[in-house]
């Protein structure tokens, strides 16, 4: 460094070097002055690329090989894209935004987007002064504009549109986000089985739909719960004080399973009645009510149910308990699955056509529904707070199917055992849960069945349990015929070739022999010949 002691003005000269061998690539991190970012206050920082755009460029992957894939799919897709001139831009890692997290979990987060066109016409250099006084110049490779990310909950585009549509009705805009947060929190608490924190305005809203799904799949109740919350949302617009009152009312609405009609009446009458009323936060009433409720998350939702439903829900809660123990977060989504499962079961049973034969299909149904549970995921709509939950859920997917199938296989086995026992006690109490389930689910499945009698149903229900290997014996046929008159067709259905291991011809022959031996009485019902035996 040569410093010239020049004339009046002091001038200093520094050499400028442009290092060649540097492996480092320099980039600019630009913050808006208004964000008041002071890098010296950072104790710890983590920065990585935001790869979330990779999904868009990756296209949805069809299963490679085996199930669901098609021969030559990729080539066909490529050809199609070329034909239409669709040019997909490459996913360049270099151009992806950065995610900067400062000071750990509780600190700030920034997103740095690359600014284009920086290096096109002019180059930027970073001049640093070295200890020896000379300047070193490094070229800048990229410029990233960092913007702070909001930590608070924000509305997505769809939600924003929704709220926009309601702007004329809603008066209290402040509580919009508050309500959403509360709702989310409530769902989160339900899933984690935590006891609710009393005190703050953390009342529950609208019945906790997860809980509803879990318990019963009766359409009415589902509708009611949604109606409740909708009506309560509408009422939101009538003042903060009213909001407090509503929350309490909604808290009550959640327990509508117990006192449904009462509360609904209350909700309706709420309209406009309490406007402007200054009400203290009724902490004791609501929180105490809600805490015991919280304490029984899955069990004992005493919604209107008969004995059948009771036994059914027992089994359900059994399954649920198993699931909950092993997968806390997956609770709700499994519950959501329960409805498709039950729907599947229903469908299966309806299609079988007879309560007796629904035995076999019951087990098949359960097996099928186990498979469906694995495949079908009914993702419930969630706010942003659940986003991470959702992603972690998919991340733990390998875990859950095993849980599901394990749980269902357990119940399958349990069901099979029960059925075996039931078979041995032909007069056993009709508490076989699958049998009971069948009863409830198939009140009218007797369409082709000739018996106009409805009473034999409970009997037949309980003593039908057949294990998976049915023997075409005289004993079995006798049992069937004693119970109720059947046509030959029905009998054949009972002894399906798959079950007995005989071919259809053989089955026919053996059945004919047995019938000859038994010599049952005949009667004509609906133009069909029915056989029956009296004990």
């Amino acid at each position: 460094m040569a410093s010239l002691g020049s004339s009046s003005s002091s001038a200093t000269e520094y050499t400028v070097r442009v290092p060649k061998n540097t492996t480092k690539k320099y980039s600019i991190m630009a913050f808006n002055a208004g964000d008041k970012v002071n890098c010296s206050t950072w104790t710890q920082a983590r920065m990585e690329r935001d790869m979330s755009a990779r999904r868009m460029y990756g296209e949805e992957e069809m299963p490679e090989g085996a199930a669901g894939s098609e021969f030559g799919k990729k080539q066909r897709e490529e050809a199609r894209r070329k034909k239409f001139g669709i040019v997909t831009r490459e996913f360049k890692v270099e151009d992806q935004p950065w995610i900067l997290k400062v000071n750990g979990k509780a600190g700030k987060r920034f997103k740095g987007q690359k600014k284009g066109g920086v290096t096109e016409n002019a180059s930027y250099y970073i001049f640093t002064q070295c200890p020896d006084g000379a300047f070193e110049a490094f070229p800048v490779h990229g410029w990233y504009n960092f913007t702070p990310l909001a930590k608070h909950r924000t509305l997505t585009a769809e939600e924003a549109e929704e709220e926009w549509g309601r702007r004329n009705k809603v008066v209290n805009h402040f509580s919009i986000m508050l309500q959403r947060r509360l709702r989310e929190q409530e769902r989160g608490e339900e899933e984690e089985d935590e006891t609710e924190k009393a005190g703050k305005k953390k009342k529950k809203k609208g019945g906790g739909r997860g809980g509803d799904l879990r318990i019963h799949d009766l359409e009415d109740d589902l509708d009611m719960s949604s109606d409740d919350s909708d009506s309560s949302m509408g009422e939101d617009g009538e003042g903060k004080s009213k909001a407090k009152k509503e929350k309490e009312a909604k808290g009550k609405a959640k327990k509508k399973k117990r006192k449904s009609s009462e509360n609904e009446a209350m909700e309706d009458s709420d309209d406009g009645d309490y406007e402007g009323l200054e009400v203290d936060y009724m902490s004791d009433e609501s929180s105490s009510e809600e805490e015991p409720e919280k304490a029984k998350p899955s069990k004992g939702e005493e919604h209107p149910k008969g004995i059948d439903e009771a036994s059914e829900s027992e089994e359900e809660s059994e399954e649920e308990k198993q699931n909950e123990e092993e997968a806390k977060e997956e609770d709700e989504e499994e519950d959501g699955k329960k409805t498709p499962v039950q729907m599947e079961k229903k469908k299966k049973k309806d299609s079988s056509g007879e309560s007796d034969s629904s035995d076999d299909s019951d087990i098949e149904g359960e097996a099928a529904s186990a498979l469906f549970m694995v495949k079908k995921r009914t993702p419930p709509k969630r706010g942003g707070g659940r986003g991470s939950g959702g992603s972690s859920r998919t991340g733990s997917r390998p875990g859950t199917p095993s849980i599901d199938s394990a749980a269902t296989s357990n119940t399958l086995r349990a069901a099979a055992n029960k059925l075996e026992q039931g078979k041995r006690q032909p007069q056993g109490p009709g508490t076989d849960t699958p049998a009971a389930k069948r009863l409830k689910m198939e009140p009218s499945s007797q369409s082709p069945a000739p018996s106009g009698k409805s009473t034999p149903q409970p009997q037949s229900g309980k003593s039908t349990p057949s294990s998976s290997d049915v023997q075409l014996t005289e004993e079995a046929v006798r049992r069937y015929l004693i119970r109720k008159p059947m046509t030959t067709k029905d009998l054949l259905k009972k002894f399906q070739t798959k079950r007995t291991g005989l071919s259809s011809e053989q089955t026919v022959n053996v059945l004919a022999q047995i019938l000859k031996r038994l010599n049952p009485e005949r009667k004509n019902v609906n133009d069909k010949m029915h056989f029956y035996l009296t004990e």
Partner: protein
Amino acid sequence: MSDKAEVNLSGIKQSQGVWLVKVPKYLSQQWNKATEKEKVGKLTIEKKQGKAEVCFSLDEQLTTLSSLGEKGTSLQVPRDHPFTMHTVGGQTLAVFTQNDTDEISLEGMVVQRAECRPAVSDSYMKLKKLQIEESTKPQRLSQQLEKAVTTIFKPVANHTVNVKYEKKKKLEGKMVRAERQVVLDKLFSAFERHQYYNIKDLVDITKQPVSYLKEILREIGVYNTRGAHKSTWELKPEYRHYQSAEEEEAMKTA
């Protein structure tokens, strides 16, 4: 290729601040030609009546611009470049670096922004003229041909492509019906690899005449007329043993 997340903040603690300087393209090109010594020039900072004046003067050796195309004219790049200083008002600028190993470290904060301008001189004007001429040249040129192209589209008895195709077909010969069992085996192994197949693809794989193949397929498979996999063949449900990935895992763990 993942970037290590942790940012090295040591640089920013010590650094007094750096300058961000905008440099014209030709100058940065010259700098890239710098020799081993890496010295490209010198920076003169004067304090005149309170204001700081910064001027950069390029080294002697780097002033010769090797211009392409025209011989004999070696332009001189101007030597003096005063810097225009700016404040870093509206933005907080920091500098970070990335290693080859994708380690990120924060080097420092920008305290001063500057623009390097050339001192206007004749040589600079000439240089600019040259640049403009180059940039106005179109990238694609139309070229006039003296003679029309006559090598394509001559009438031909049979196109070469067709000839090749026919020869290939002749070599292969007609598709012979193989044993039913053999064909079934081929089909089953094909369906092990993918679930849905087009009839054409199956013909390709099995080398069987279409009607025969269809007969066999009707026996073991089903034709999808609608849905995601339209007009494809797949095995009948009883012949299928597909396990999705999840079920396989479930099987493993259960």
